[in-house]
């Protein structure tokens, strides 16, 4: 048996799904998260069945790709029963989706989730009456606590076995008349496509792009426009608004029949927004929360990184060197170990606490509030408020920053945010800025580089705003109630995201390290330096030997500094490089192409072409900025 879960965002659908499934699905308290649907086989008290988590949707229109997909999937008829999870405290809006699911005429069970929140809001629901009016079984649940989930599954299995189809409730008389008349004309199409006649009729009257594009017969289209016109003229509204208003009216009627409203119980959660979303204080708390968050992440990361890297450098590598004989073998082994150590010592200690923190902020419901507060600023550089998180994350590591752009809805926003996030100096680049500029020149100079970086990112954002203007209808997103998150789900979510690093980026990190060892073994550095001479020496005015370090920097960013010192043959960098040269080098390394692991993730998320653009764009920016710094430095005789 296949059970599908459908529900609006923040309905708690994925929470129920996760309680049933293994470590596969992901829940979210942020709109637009589940882009692909996940499937999982479940053995529940001896019953084996498949569960499918459909993308979190508000409705079933074709305007949204995820919503369209959900609808098409349900129409295929593979699903035995659909569980429609709804937020009991938002009954009217939720029932509008329920109505649309009924139009699909699939076996349906309604799951009334967040019963506790509804009660707190003073909403008492007569479940028997609701079930009677909808002619669909209704099961109340409190998903986070697991209350009612067992009953829900039992009911779903029962309905699935009976194959009891749901049916849609009638609209008002005049609208029904138009539907009936037009349905006659499309019934052959509905038969051909094996979808319910009434559903197709309503979709066409709503002007649904997907179904209209499938119709070739011009006569039917003309009939459709005609029917739409009748609705428009009699109601004085576009036909799609007429239909949605009908569903809305039905939902209100049901609400009034089944709900008795009492006094809402004002709790701490309701008061929280008085400060966290305050006009001015809200920003103060945002800064404080992010400050604490990133400090905890970096402190935790640093605590692991130091001892871990020492362990590899002082214990593992010498041991390997001792036992692997001579020739190429020790180089390969050590290269692989260094790549492995980089993942476990430098990346994982930072991204795991970051992902845990991100999941907490997401599930508590703070993320949409950050988006609300930050939107005004990020809008100016062509982004949305939600983009702030991937951007800040970029200071830790570009890999999760690029992956973190998934919280954004539109592809354009995701891409621009990803490009800008890769320009933010990651931990390795921070190490270079601090290790070379702050150490050899001054902390003020290092701060200057950070400010320059932010300015360049903002300017790049404005440039993208010009090249890729916004096409989305604008910002509309729900700010959900605060929730107490479930530890289990936070851990599942963290694992799911970390998995991407482990299986995509890490192998490349190891591969890159091995390549470096090979370069070293075959003494290829001279060839590389010669090849890069026009860039390094002619254009940037740097010593020729830095060429190889730039290649190292692509494979593993922090190696650019280590290798610079190795290539120069001294840690007294000032003896061999001028201040201007140091700053030029660091600026170039800060902006030029992201590391190989980031490139891999960019390719995975956006395809080869758009990942390639990032490489070209960042190289141009890096070169221009470094040349400008060189000129400025030489003019000042610094």
């Amino acid at each position, binding site marked *: 048996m296949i059970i599908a879960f459908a529900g609006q965002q923040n309905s708690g659908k994925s929470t129920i799904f996760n309680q049933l499934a293994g470590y596969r699905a992901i829940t979210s308290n942020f709109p637009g998260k589940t882009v692909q649907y996940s499937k999982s086989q479940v053995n529940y008290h001896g019953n084996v069945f498949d569960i499918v988590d459909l993308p979190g949707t*508000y*409705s079933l*229109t074709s*305007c949204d790709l995820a919503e369209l997909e959900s609808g098409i999937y349900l129409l295929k008829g593979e699903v035995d029963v659909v569980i429609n999870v709804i937020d009991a*405290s*938002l009954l*009217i*809006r939720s029932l*509008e*989706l329920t109505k649309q699911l009924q139009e699909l005429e699939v076996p349906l069970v309604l799951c009334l989730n967040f019963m506790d929140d509804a009660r707190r*809001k003073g909403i008492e629901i007569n479940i028997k009456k609701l079930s009677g009016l909808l002619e669909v079984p209704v099961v109340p649940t409190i998903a986070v606590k697991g209350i009612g989930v067992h009953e829900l599954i039992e009911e779903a299995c029962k309905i699935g076995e009976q194959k009891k189809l749901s049916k849609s409730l009638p609209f008002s008389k005049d609208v029904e008349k138009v539907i009936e008349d037009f349905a006659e004309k499309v019934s052959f199409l509905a038969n051909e496509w094996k979808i319910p006649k009434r559903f197709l009729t309503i979709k066409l009257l709503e*002007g649904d792009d997907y179904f209209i594009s499938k119709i070739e017969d011009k006569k039917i289209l003309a009939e459709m426009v005609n029917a739409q016109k009748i609705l428009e003229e009699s109601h004085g*509204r*576009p036909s*799609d*608004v007429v239909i*949605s*208003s009908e569903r*809305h009216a039905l939902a209100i009627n049901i609400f009034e029949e089944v709900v008795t409203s009492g006094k809402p119980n004002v709790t701490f959660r309701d008061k929280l927004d008085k400060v966290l*979303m305050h*006009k*001015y204080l809200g920003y103060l708390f945002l800064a404080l929360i992010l400050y604490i968050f990133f400090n905890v992440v970096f402190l935790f990361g640093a605590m692991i990184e130091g001892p871990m890297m020492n362990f590899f450098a002082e214990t593992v590598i010498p041991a390997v060197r001792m036992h692997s004989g001579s020739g190429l073998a020790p180089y390969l082994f050590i290269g692989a170990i260094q790549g492995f150590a980089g993942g476990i010592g430098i990346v994982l200690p930072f991204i795991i606490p970051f992902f845990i923190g991100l999941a907490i902020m997401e599930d508590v419901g703070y993320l*949409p509030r950050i*988006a*609300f*507060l930050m*939107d*005004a*600023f990020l*809008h100016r550089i062509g982004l949305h*408020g939600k983009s702030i998180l991937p951007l800040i994350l970029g200071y830790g590591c570009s890999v999760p920053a690029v992956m973190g752009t998934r919280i954004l809805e539109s592809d354009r926003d995701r891409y621009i945010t990803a490009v800008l996030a890769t320009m933010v100096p990651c931990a390795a680049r921070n190490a270079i800025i601090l290790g070379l500029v702050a150490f050899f020149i001054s902390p003020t100079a290092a701060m200057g580089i950070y400010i320059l970086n932010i300015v360049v990112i903002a300017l790049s954002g404005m440039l993208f705003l010009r090249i890729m203007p916004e096409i989305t*209808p*604008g*910002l*509309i*997103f*729900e*700010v*959900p109630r605060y929730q107490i998150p479930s530890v289990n789900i936070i851990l599942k979510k963290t694992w799911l995201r970390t998995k991407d690093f482990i299986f995509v980026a890490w192998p490349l990190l190891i591969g890159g390290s091995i390549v470096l060892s090979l370069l070293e073994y075959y003494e290829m550095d001279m060839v590389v330096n010669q090849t890069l001479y026009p860039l390094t020496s002619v254009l940037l005015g740097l010593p020729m030997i830095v060429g190889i370090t730039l290649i190292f920097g692509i494979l593993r960013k922090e190696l650019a500094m280590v290798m610079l010192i190795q290539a120069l043959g001294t840690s007294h960098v000032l003896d061999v490089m001028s201040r201007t040269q140091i700053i030029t080098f660091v600026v170039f390394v800060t902006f030029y192409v992201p590391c190989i692991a980031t490139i891999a993730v960019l390719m995975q998320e956006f395809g080869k072409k758009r990942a390639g653009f990032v490489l070209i764009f960042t190289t141009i920016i890096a070169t221009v900025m470094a040349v400008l710094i060189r000129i400025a430095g030489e003019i000042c005789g610094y």
Partner: protein
Amino acid sequence: MPTLDQVQEGKKVKVIKIKGGLRLRHRLTEIGIHPGDIVGIVKISVFGGPILIAIEGAEVAIGRGVAQKLEVEVVE
């Protein structure tokens, strides 16, 4: 008739018309905003940011651009 972005914080308004295309209408209705609905203006963010509105127990943030397309009537 004023649009939503011209209304003060704390007021309640009735949505009269959505002056936008099919996509915008869909996105607003699916999140619970229909012509005829009563909407509360909860918060107007500073620096031209989004507007937070309350509708049937849910809170929804909408950008100024979208707000400009909502014709409303102040009811309280």
